[in-house]
Protein backbone atom coordinates (compact mmCIF):
# COMPACT_ATOMS: atom_id res chain seq x y z
CA UNK A 1 0.00 0.00 0.00
CA UNK A 2 1.60 3.21 -1.16
CA UNK A 3 0.85 6.12 1.11
CA UNK A 4 0.82 9.76 0.20
CA UNK A 5 0.68 11.48 -3.13
CA UNK A 6 2.65 14.24 -4.76
CA UNK A 7 1.93 17.90 -4.37
CA UNK A 8 -0.80 17.63 -1.75
CA UNK A 9 -3.03 15.46 -3.93
CA UNK A 10 -4.86 12.72 -2.08
CA UNK A 11 -5.47 9.72 -4.28
CA UNK A 12 -7.17 6.55 -3.13
CA UNK A 13 -8.09 3.47 -5.17
CA UNK A 14 -10.74 1.09 -3.87
CA UNK A 15 -10.30 -2.30 -5.47
CA UNK A 16 -9.92 -6.04 -5.29
CA UNK A 17 -6.57 -7.58 -6.20
CA UNK A 18 -7.89 -9.86 -8.92
CA UNK A 19 -10.27 -7.56 -10.78
CA UNK A 20 -9.23 -6.73 -14.35
CA UNK A 21 -11.08 -3.45 -13.98
CA UNK A 22 -9.00 -2.50 -10.95
CA UNK A 23 -5.74 -3.83 -12.40
CA UNK A 24 -5.98 -1.64 -15.49
CA UNK A 25 -6.27 1.47 -13.28
CA UNK A 26 -3.23 0.34 -11.29
CA UNK A 27 -1.22 -0.11 -14.48
CA UNK A 28 -2.05 3.41 -15.65
CA UNK A 29 -1.25 4.86 -12.22
CA UNK A 30 2.12 3.11 -12.48
CA UNK A 31 2.69 4.38 -16.03
CA UNK A 32 2.00 7.90 -14.86
CA UNK A 33 4.21 7.48 -11.80
CA UNK A 34 1.47 8.76 -9.55
CA UNK A 35 1.44 7.49 -5.98
CA UNK A 36 -1.81 6.50 -4.35
CA UNK A 37 -3.29 4.66 -1.41
CA UNK A 38 -4.72 1.28 -2.32
CA UNK A 39 -7.66 -0.06 -0.31
CA UNK A 40 -8.53 -3.74 -0.71
CA UNK A 41 -12.29 -4.23 -0.51
CA UNK A 42 -14.12 -7.33 0.67
CA UNK A 43 -16.89 -7.68 -1.93
CA UNK A 44 -18.93 -9.75 0.53
CA UNK A 45 -18.74 -6.93 3.05
CA UNK A 46 -18.38 -3.68 1.14
CA UNK A 47 -17.06 -0.71 3.04
CA UNK A 48 -19.19 2.35 3.75
CA UNK A 49 -16.64 4.31 1.75
CA UNK A 50 -17.22 2.14 -1.32
CA UNK A 51 -21.00 2.18 -0.99
CA UNK A 52 -20.97 5.93 -0.42
CA UNK A 53 -18.56 6.61 -3.28
CA UNK A 54 -20.32 4.48 -5.87
CA UNK A 55 -23.95 4.27 -4.76
CA UNK A 56 -25.16 3.66 -8.32
CA UNK A 57 -23.19 0.49 -9.10
CA UNK A 58 -21.59 -0.36 -5.70
CA UNK A 59 -18.59 -1.79 -7.56
CA UNK A 60 -14.83 -1.49 -7.69
CA UNK A 61 -12.75 0.18 -8.92
CA UNK A 62 -13.48 3.59 -7.45
CA UNK A 63 -10.83 6.28 -7.60
CA UNK A 64 -11.13 8.99 -4.98
CA UNK A 65 -9.13 12.12 -5.81
CA UNK A 66 -9.10 14.78 -3.11
CA UNK A 67 -12.31 13.32 -1.77
CA UNK A 68 -14.11 13.21 -5.13
CA UNK A 69 -15.07 9.73 -6.36
CA UNK A 70 -14.85 8.51 -9.94
CA UNK A 71 -16.32 5.12 -10.92
CA UNK A 72 -16.28 2.87 -14.02
CA UNK A 73 -12.80 1.77 -15.06
CA UNK A 74 -12.66 3.34 -18.54
CA UNK A 75 -14.06 6.59 -17.13
CA UNK A 76 -11.32 6.48 -14.49
CA UNK A 77 -8.65 5.90 -17.15
CA UNK A 78 -9.82 8.93 -19.13
CA UNK A 79 -9.89 10.95 -15.91
CA UNK A 80 -6.31 9.99 -15.09
CA UNK A 81 -5.31 10.94 -18.60
CA UNK A 82 -6.76 14.43 -18.16
CA UNK A 83 -6.05 15.12 -14.48
CA UNK A 84 -2.47 13.81 -14.61
CA UNK A 85 -1.34 15.10 -17.94
CA UNK A 86 2.27 16.11 -18.53
CA UNK A 87 3.83 16.91 -15.20
CA UNK A 88 0.59 17.52 -13.28
CA UNK A 89 0.49 16.05 -9.77
CA UNK A 90 4.07 14.84 -10.18
CA UNK A 91 3.18 12.51 -13.03
CA UNK A 92 5.65 11.29 -15.62
CA UNK A 93 3.45 12.72 -18.35
CA UNK A 94 2.99 9.30 -19.91
CA UNK A 95 -0.11 9.28 -22.05
CA UNK A 96 -2.37 6.33 -22.84
CA UNK A 97 -4.54 8.06 -25.41
CA UNK A 98 -3.19 9.53 -28.66
CA UNK A 99 -3.57 13.24 -29.38
CA UNK A 100 -5.12 12.77 -32.80
CA UNK A 101 -8.95 12.80 -32.60
CA UNK A 102 -9.41 9.95 -35.06
CA UNK A 103 -6.85 7.74 -33.35
CA UNK A 104 -8.52 8.47 -30.02
CA UNK A 105 -11.86 7.40 -31.48
CA UNK A 106 -10.30 4.17 -32.74
CA UNK A 107 -8.75 3.47 -29.32
CA UNK A 108 -12.06 4.13 -27.54
CA UNK A 109 -13.86 1.90 -30.03
CA UNK A 110 -11.55 -1.07 -29.47
CA UNK A 111 -11.50 -0.60 -25.69
CA UNK A 112 -15.31 -0.71 -25.63
CA UNK A 113 -15.19 -3.77 -27.91
CA UNK A 114 -12.82 -5.59 -25.56
CA UNK A 115 -14.97 -5.04 -22.51
CA UNK A 116 -18.09 -6.01 -24.41
CA UNK A 117 -16.80 -9.08 -26.30
CA UNK A 118 -14.03 -10.33 -24.01
CA UNK A 119 -15.22 -8.96 -20.67
CA UNK A 120 -18.78 -10.29 -20.86
CA UNK A 121 -17.64 -13.84 -21.69
CA UNK A 122 -15.01 -13.59 -18.91
CA UNK A 123 -17.77 -12.86 -16.44
CA UNK A 124 -19.88 -15.74 -17.72
CA UNK A 125 -16.96 -18.16 -17.53
CA UNK A 126 -16.35 -17.24 -13.91
CA UNK A 127 -19.90 -17.12 -12.67
CA UNK A 128 -22.11 -19.31 -14.89
CA UNK A 129 -23.13 -22.54 -13.23
CA UNK A 130 -23.09 -24.92 -16.17
CA UNK A 131 -19.80 -25.92 -17.78
CA UNK A 132 -21.51 -25.72 -21.15
CA UNK A 133 -22.20 -22.01 -20.66
CA UNK A 134 -18.58 -21.44 -19.69
CA UNK A 135 -17.24 -23.26 -22.75
CA UNK A 136 -19.60 -21.38 -25.06
CA UNK A 137 -18.51 -18.09 -23.52
CA UNK A 138 -14.85 -19.06 -23.97
CA UNK A 139 -15.53 -19.63 -27.67
CA UNK A 140 -16.99 -16.13 -27.90
CA UNK A 141 -13.92 -14.67 -26.20
CA UNK A 142 -11.64 -16.51 -28.60
CA UNK A 143 -13.62 -15.20 -31.55
CA UNK A 144 -13.25 -11.69 -30.16
CA UNK A 145 -9.49 -12.13 -29.84
CA UNK A 146 -9.35 -13.25 -33.46
CA UNK A 147 -11.23 -10.12 -34.48
CA UNK A 148 -8.84 -8.01 -32.42
CA UNK A 149 -5.83 -9.77 -33.95
CA UNK A 150 -7.10 -9.03 -37.43
CA UNK A 151 -8.62 -5.61 -36.82
CA UNK A 152 -7.15 -3.75 -33.87
CA UNK A 153 -3.60 -4.70 -34.64
CA UNK A 154 -4.01 -3.17 -38.05
CA UNK A 155 -5.39 -0.08 -36.33
CA UNK A 156 -2.39 0.24 -34.03
CA UNK A 157 -1.22 3.78 -33.42
CA UNK A 158 2.15 4.75 -34.70
CA UNK A 159 2.95 7.73 -32.54
CA UNK A 160 6.59 6.67 -32.27
CA UNK A 161 9.23 8.19 -34.48
CA UNK A 162 11.09 5.02 -35.28
CA UNK A 163 8.44 2.33 -35.55
CA UNK A 164 5.72 2.04 -38.11
CA UNK A 165 2.26 0.80 -37.27
CA UNK A 166 2.84 -2.74 -38.50
CA UNK A 167 5.66 -3.44 -36.07
CA UNK A 168 4.65 -1.25 -33.13
CA UNK A 169 4.97 -3.31 -29.95
CA UNK A 170 1.70 -2.13 -28.43
CA UNK A 171 -1.77 -1.03 -29.51
CA UNK A 172 -0.70 2.40 -28.29
CA UNK A 173 2.35 2.33 -30.55
CA UNK A 174 5.78 2.41 -28.92
CA UNK A 175 4.28 2.66 -25.47
CA UNK A 176 1.40 1.05 -23.65
CA UNK A 177 -1.94 2.64 -24.49
CA UNK A 178 -5.62 2.51 -23.70
CA UNK A 179 -6.42 -0.69 -25.57
CA UNK A 180 -3.31 -2.39 -24.16
CA UNK A 181 -4.34 -1.86 -20.54
CA UNK A 182 -7.97 -2.74 -21.18
CA UNK A 183 -7.24 -6.02 -22.97
CA UNK A 184 -4.12 -6.76 -20.93
CA UNK A 185 -6.10 -6.63 -17.70
CA UNK A 186 -7.74 -9.98 -18.54
CA UNK A 187 -4.48 -11.84 -19.18
CA UNK A 188 -4.06 -13.18 -15.63
CA UNK A 189 -7.48 -14.79 -15.83
CA UNK A 190 -6.87 -16.46 -19.19
CA UNK A 191 -4.44 -18.87 -17.53
CA UNK A 192 -6.95 -19.59 -14.78
CA UNK A 193 -9.66 -20.28 -17.34
CA UNK A 194 -7.41 -22.77 -19.08
CA UNK A 195 -6.97 -24.64 -15.82
CA UNK A 196 -10.66 -24.37 -14.92
CA UNK A 197 -12.27 -25.55 -18.15
CA UNK A 198 -9.37 -26.69 -20.30
CA UNK A 199 -9.85 -24.01 -22.94
CA UNK A 200 -6.91 -21.86 -23.96
CA UNK A 201 -8.22 -18.39 -24.77
CA UNK A 202 -4.88 -16.75 -25.62
CA UNK A 203 -3.30 -19.25 -27.98
CA UNK A 204 -0.24 -18.51 -30.10
CA UNK A 205 -1.49 -21.03 -32.65
CA UNK A 206 -4.67 -19.03 -33.19
CA UNK A 207 -3.61 -15.44 -32.49
CA UNK A 208 0.18 -15.31 -32.77
CA UNK A 209 0.50 -11.53 -32.79
CA UNK A 210 -1.67 -11.17 -29.72
CA UNK A 211 0.20 -13.93 -27.92
CA UNK A 212 3.49 -12.11 -28.53
CA UNK A 213 1.90 -8.83 -27.48
CA UNK A 214 0.65 -10.48 -24.26
CA UNK A 215 4.19 -11.50 -23.32
CA UNK A 216 5.49 -7.98 -23.93
CA UNK A 217 2.64 -6.44 -21.95
CA UNK A 218 3.08 -8.70 -18.94
CA UNK A 219 6.83 -8.04 -18.91
CA UNK A 220 6.42 -4.26 -18.82
CA UNK A 221 7.51 -2.50 -15.64
CA UNK A 222 4.17 -0.84 -15.04
CA UNK A 223 2.41 -4.18 -15.31
CA UNK A 224 4.63 -6.52 -13.31
CA UNK A 225 3.24 -7.04 -9.84
CA UNK A 226 -0.22 -5.82 -10.80
CA UNK A 227 -1.77 -8.66 -12.78
CA UNK A 228 -2.48 -11.74 -10.69
CA UNK A 229 -0.13 -14.54 -11.76
CA UNK A 230 -0.74 -17.23 -9.16
CA UNK A 231 -3.32 -19.40 -10.90
CA UNK A 232 -4.14 -21.52 -7.85
CA UNK A 233 -4.58 -18.48 -5.65
CA UNK A 234 -7.05 -17.08 -8.19
CA UNK A 235 -8.97 -20.34 -8.35
CA UNK A 236 -9.14 -20.58 -4.55
CA UNK A 237 -10.34 -16.97 -4.35
CA UNK A 238 -13.02 -17.59 -6.95
CA UNK A 239 -14.23 -20.77 -5.23
CA UNK A 240 -14.45 -18.96 -1.91
CA UNK A 241 -16.35 -16.12 -3.56
CA UNK A 242 -18.82 -18.49 -5.20
CA UNK A 243 -19.58 -20.28 -1.92
Amino acid at each position, binding site marked *: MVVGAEGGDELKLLGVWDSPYVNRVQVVLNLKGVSYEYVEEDLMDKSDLLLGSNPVHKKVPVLIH*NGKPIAESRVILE*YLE*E*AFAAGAGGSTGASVLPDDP*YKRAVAR*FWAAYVDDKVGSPWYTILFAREREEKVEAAARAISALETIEAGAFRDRSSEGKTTNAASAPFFGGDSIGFVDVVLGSYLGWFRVIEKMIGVRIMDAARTPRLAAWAERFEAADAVRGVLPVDVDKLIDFLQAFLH
Partner: protein
Amino acid sequence: MAAAKKEKELLLLDFWVSPFGQRCRIAMAEKGLEFEYREEDLGNKSDLLLRSNPVHRKIPVLLHAGRPVCESLVILQYLDDAFPDTPHLLPPANSSSGDADAAYARATARFWADYVDKKLYDCGSRLWRLKGEPQAAARREMVEILRTLEAELGYREFFGGGGGRLGFVDVALVPFTAWFYSYERCGGFSVEEVAPRLAAWARRCGRIDSVAKHLPSPEKVYDFVGVLKKKYGVE
Protein backbone atom coordinates in the same frame (compact mmCIF):
# COMPACT_ATOMS: atom_id res chain seq x y z
CA MET B 1 -16.00 23.44 -55.29
CA ALA B 2 -15.14 24.00 -51.61
CA ALA B 3 -18.83 24.02 -50.62
CA ALA B 4 -19.52 20.75 -52.42
CA LYS B 5 -16.56 19.10 -50.71
CA LYS B 6 -17.73 20.31 -47.32
CA GLU B 7 -21.14 18.73 -47.90
CA LYS B 8 -19.54 15.35 -48.40
CA GLU B 9 -17.29 15.67 -45.38
CA LEU B 10 -19.71 14.25 -42.80
CA LEU B 11 -21.91 11.31 -43.67
CA LEU B 12 -24.08 9.52 -41.12
CA LEU B 13 -25.28 5.98 -41.80
CA ASP B 14 -28.31 5.60 -39.62
CA PHE B 15 -31.82 4.24 -39.07
CA TRP B 16 -34.68 6.64 -38.41
CA VAL B 17 -35.85 5.32 -35.01
CA SER B 18 -32.41 4.53 -33.55
CA PRO B 19 -31.79 6.54 -30.39
CA PHE B 20 -28.06 5.97 -30.90
CA GLY B 21 -28.22 7.53 -34.35
CA GLN B 22 -30.35 10.39 -33.05
CA ARG B 23 -27.62 11.22 -30.54
CA CYS B 24 -25.25 11.84 -33.45
CA ARG B 25 -27.77 13.90 -35.44
CA ILE B 26 -28.59 16.09 -32.45
CA ALA B 27 -24.89 16.49 -31.58
CA MET B 28 -24.01 17.67 -35.07
CA ALA B 29 -27.01 20.00 -35.12
CA GLU B 30 -25.97 21.47 -31.77
CA LYS B 31 -22.49 22.00 -33.20
CA GLY B 32 -23.83 23.60 -36.37
CA LEU B 33 -22.21 20.89 -38.48
CA GLU B 34 -23.71 20.08 -41.85
CA PHE B 35 -23.94 16.40 -42.59
CA GLU B 36 -25.46 14.02 -45.06
CA TYR B 37 -27.98 11.62 -43.54
CA ARG B 38 -28.30 8.22 -45.15
CA GLU B 39 -31.04 5.83 -44.08
CA GLU B 40 -29.97 2.19 -43.97
CA ASP B 41 -32.28 -0.73 -44.61
CA LEU B 42 -31.31 -2.94 -41.68
CA GLY B 43 -32.64 -5.98 -43.49
CA ASN B 44 -30.36 -5.25 -46.42
CA LYS B 45 -27.32 -3.38 -45.16
CA SER B 46 -25.29 -1.37 -47.65
CA ASP B 47 -21.77 -2.35 -48.66
CA LEU B 48 -20.61 0.95 -47.26
CA LEU B 49 -22.04 0.14 -43.83
CA LEU B 50 -20.58 -3.36 -43.82
CA ARG B 51 -17.18 -2.08 -44.91
CA SER B 52 -17.24 0.83 -42.47
CA ASN B 53 -18.28 -1.20 -39.44
CA PRO B 54 -17.19 -4.78 -40.17
CA VAL B 55 -16.93 -5.59 -36.47
CA HIS B 56 -20.50 -4.79 -35.42
CA ARG B 57 -22.30 -4.12 -38.73
CA LYS B 58 -24.47 -1.63 -36.89
CA ILE B 59 -25.58 1.93 -37.28
CA PRO B 60 -24.82 4.66 -36.49
CA VAL B 61 -21.57 5.06 -38.37
CA LEU B 62 -20.16 8.51 -38.93
CA LEU B 63 -17.89 8.88 -41.93
CA HIS B 64 -15.66 11.94 -41.75
CA ALA B 65 -13.80 12.55 -45.00
CA GLY B 66 -14.36 8.85 -45.67
CA ARG B 67 -13.00 7.54 -42.35
CA PRO B 68 -15.52 5.66 -40.21
CA VAL B 69 -16.20 6.29 -36.53
CA CYS B 70 -18.48 3.77 -34.81
CA GLU B 71 -20.35 3.59 -31.48
CA SER B 72 -22.51 6.61 -30.67
CA LEU B 73 -20.69 7.81 -27.54
CA VAL B 74 -17.35 7.43 -29.32
CA ILE B 75 -18.82 9.50 -32.18
CA LEU B 76 -19.96 12.21 -29.76
CA GLN B 77 -16.50 12.48 -28.22
CA TYR B 78 -14.94 12.43 -31.66
CA LEU B 79 -17.12 15.36 -32.72
CA ASP B 80 -15.87 17.34 -29.70
CA ASP B 81 -12.23 16.43 -30.42
CA ALA B 82 -12.32 16.91 -34.20
CA PHE B 83 -14.35 20.13 -34.16
CA PRO B 84 -12.94 22.00 -31.16
CA ASP B 85 -14.29 25.35 -32.35
CA THR B 86 -17.90 24.19 -32.14
CA PRO B 87 -20.02 24.16 -28.94
CA HIS B 88 -18.75 21.47 -26.54
CA LEU B 89 -20.79 18.48 -25.50
CA LEU B 90 -18.40 17.47 -22.73
CA PRO B 91 -17.31 20.25 -20.37
CA PRO B 92 -14.06 21.57 -21.87
CA ALA B 93 -10.79 20.22 -20.49
CA ASN B 94 -8.21 22.71 -19.43
CA SER B 95 -5.66 22.25 -22.16
CA SER B 96 -2.55 23.49 -20.38
CA SER B 97 -2.01 21.32 -17.33
CA GLY B 98 -4.93 18.95 -16.88
CA ASP B 99 -7.22 20.84 -14.53
CA ALA B 100 -8.61 18.28 -12.10
CA ASP B 101 -11.93 20.07 -11.70
CA ALA B 102 -12.57 20.12 -15.44
CA ALA B 103 -11.50 16.48 -15.63
CA TYR B 104 -13.91 15.63 -12.83
CA ALA B 105 -16.84 17.29 -14.62
CA ARG B 106 -15.96 15.32 -17.75
CA ALA B 107 -15.67 12.08 -15.80
CA THR B 108 -19.09 12.69 -14.26
CA ALA B 109 -20.60 13.26 -17.70
CA ARG B 110 -18.96 10.11 -19.08
CA PHE B 111 -20.17 8.09 -16.10
CA TRP B 112 -23.80 9.10 -16.62
CA ALA B 113 -23.73 8.61 -20.38
CA ASP B 114 -22.34 5.14 -19.68
CA TYR B 115 -25.17 4.61 -17.17
CA VAL B 116 -27.73 5.44 -19.87
CA ASP B 117 -26.01 2.99 -22.24
CA LYS B 118 -25.84 0.21 -19.67
CA LYS B 119 -29.36 0.51 -18.36
CA LEU B 120 -31.97 2.23 -20.45
CA TYR B 121 -32.12 0.50 -23.82
CA ASP B 122 -31.94 -3.01 -22.42
CA CYS B 123 -34.55 -2.42 -19.75
CA GLY B 124 -36.81 -0.69 -22.27
CA SER B 125 -36.57 -3.67 -24.59
CA ARG B 126 -37.58 -6.02 -21.81
CA LEU B 127 -40.61 -3.83 -21.12
CA TRP B 128 -42.13 -4.38 -24.55
CA ARG B 129 -40.81 -7.89 -25.16
CA LEU B 130 -41.82 -9.59 -21.93
CA LYS B 131 -45.07 -10.29 -20.11
CA GLY B 132 -46.15 -11.19 -16.60
CA GLU B 133 -43.63 -11.10 -13.77
CA PRO B 134 -40.53 -10.51 -15.93
CA GLN B 135 -42.24 -7.47 -17.43
CA ALA B 136 -43.22 -6.25 -13.95
CA ALA B 137 -39.60 -6.63 -12.88
CA ALA B 138 -38.53 -4.60 -15.93
CA ARG B 139 -41.04 -1.91 -14.99
CA ARG B 140 -39.68 -1.70 -11.44
CA GLU B 141 -36.18 -1.46 -12.85
CA MET B 142 -37.21 1.24 -15.33
CA VAL B 143 -38.79 3.31 -12.55
CA GLU B 144 -35.58 3.04 -10.56
CA ILE B 145 -33.49 4.06 -13.59
CA LEU B 146 -35.67 7.11 -14.25
CA ARG B 147 -35.55 8.11 -10.59
CA THR B 148 -31.76 7.70 -10.48
CA LEU B 149 -31.40 9.92 -13.54
CA GLU B 150 -33.78 12.45 -12.02
CA ALA B 151 -31.72 12.51 -8.81
CA GLU B 152 -28.59 13.21 -10.84
CA LEU B 153 -30.33 16.00 -12.74
CA GLY B 154 -31.34 17.53 -9.44
CA TYR B 155 -32.92 20.95 -9.89
CA ARG B 156 -30.81 21.84 -12.92
CA GLU B 157 -32.36 22.65 -16.28
CA PHE B 158 -30.01 20.28 -18.11
CA PHE B 159 -27.43 17.66 -17.13
CA GLY B 160 -24.54 19.53 -18.66
CA GLY B 161 -23.57 22.61 -20.61
CA GLY B 162 -24.90 25.64 -18.82
CA GLY B 163 -26.69 28.48 -20.52
CA GLY B 164 -29.64 26.54 -21.90
CA ARG B 165 -27.43 24.25 -23.93
CA LEU B 166 -27.45 20.49 -24.14
CA GLY B 167 -24.42 18.67 -22.82
CA PHE B 168 -23.02 15.16 -23.27
CA VAL B 169 -25.49 13.45 -20.95
CA ASP B 170 -28.47 15.38 -22.31
CA VAL B 171 -27.60 14.32 -25.87
CA ALA B 172 -26.98 10.73 -24.74
CA LEU B 173 -30.33 10.52 -22.95
CA VAL B 174 -32.74 12.71 -24.90
CA PRO B 175 -33.45 10.25 -27.76
CA PHE B 176 -34.90 7.87 -25.20
CA THR B 177 -37.53 10.46 -24.30
CA ALA B 178 -39.26 9.57 -27.56
CA TRP B 179 -39.59 6.06 -26.06
CA PHE B 180 -41.11 7.20 -22.75
CA TYR B 181 -44.63 6.90 -24.13
CA SER B 182 -43.92 3.32 -25.28
CA TYR B 183 -42.39 2.43 -21.90
CA GLU B 184 -45.47 3.87 -20.18
CA ARG B 185 -47.92 1.98 -22.40
CA CYS B 186 -46.05 -1.33 -22.15
CA GLY B 187 -45.13 -1.01 -18.49
CA GLY B 188 -48.28 0.59 -17.14
CA PHE B 189 -46.75 3.54 -15.34
CA SER B 190 -46.35 7.27 -15.85
CA VAL B 191 -43.00 9.03 -16.18
CA GLU B 192 -44.64 12.25 -14.99
CA GLU B 193 -45.71 10.49 -11.80
CA VAL B 194 -42.51 8.59 -11.00
CA ALA B 195 -40.01 11.23 -12.13
CA PRO B 196 -41.71 14.61 -12.67
CA ARG B 197 -38.49 16.63 -12.91
CA LEU B 198 -37.13 14.26 -15.53
CA ALA B 199 -40.41 14.54 -17.43
CA ALA B 200 -40.05 18.35 -17.28
CA TRP B 201 -36.47 18.03 -18.54
CA ALA B 202 -37.74 15.93 -21.46
CA ARG B 203 -40.32 18.60 -22.36
CA ARG B 204 -37.68 21.31 -22.04
CA CYS B 205 -35.37 19.42 -24.42
CA GLY B 206 -38.24 18.90 -26.85
CA ARG B 207 -38.45 22.67 -27.30
CA ILE B 208 -34.83 22.86 -28.48
CA ASP B 209 -34.47 23.03 -32.26
CA SER B 210 -31.92 20.26 -32.70
CA VAL B 211 -34.07 17.87 -30.67
CA ALA B 212 -37.38 18.85 -32.23
CA LYS B 213 -35.87 18.35 -35.66
CA HIS B 214 -34.27 14.96 -35.08
CA LEU B 215 -36.53 13.03 -32.73
CA PRO B 216 -39.55 11.12 -34.04
CA SER B 217 -42.90 11.58 -32.33
CA PRO B 218 -43.60 9.23 -29.42
CA GLU B 219 -46.59 7.91 -31.38
CA LYS B 220 -44.36 6.93 -34.31
CA VAL B 221 -42.01 5.16 -31.93
CA TYR B 222 -44.94 3.32 -30.37
CA ASP B 223 -46.09 2.22 -33.82
CA PHE B 224 -42.58 0.94 -34.45
CA VAL B 225 -42.64 -0.98 -31.15
CA GLY B 226 -45.90 -2.52 -32.39
CA VAL B 227 -44.13 -3.68 -35.54
CA LEU B 228 -41.32 -5.17 -33.43
CA LYS B 229 -43.78 -6.93 -31.17
CA LYS B 230 -45.47 -8.52 -34.18
CA LYS B 231 -42.12 -9.52 -35.59
CA TYR B 232 -41.10 -11.21 -32.33
CA GLY B 233 -44.51 -12.73 -31.73
CA VAL B 234 -45.22 -10.72 -28.59
CA GLU B 235 -48.87 -10.11 -27.81
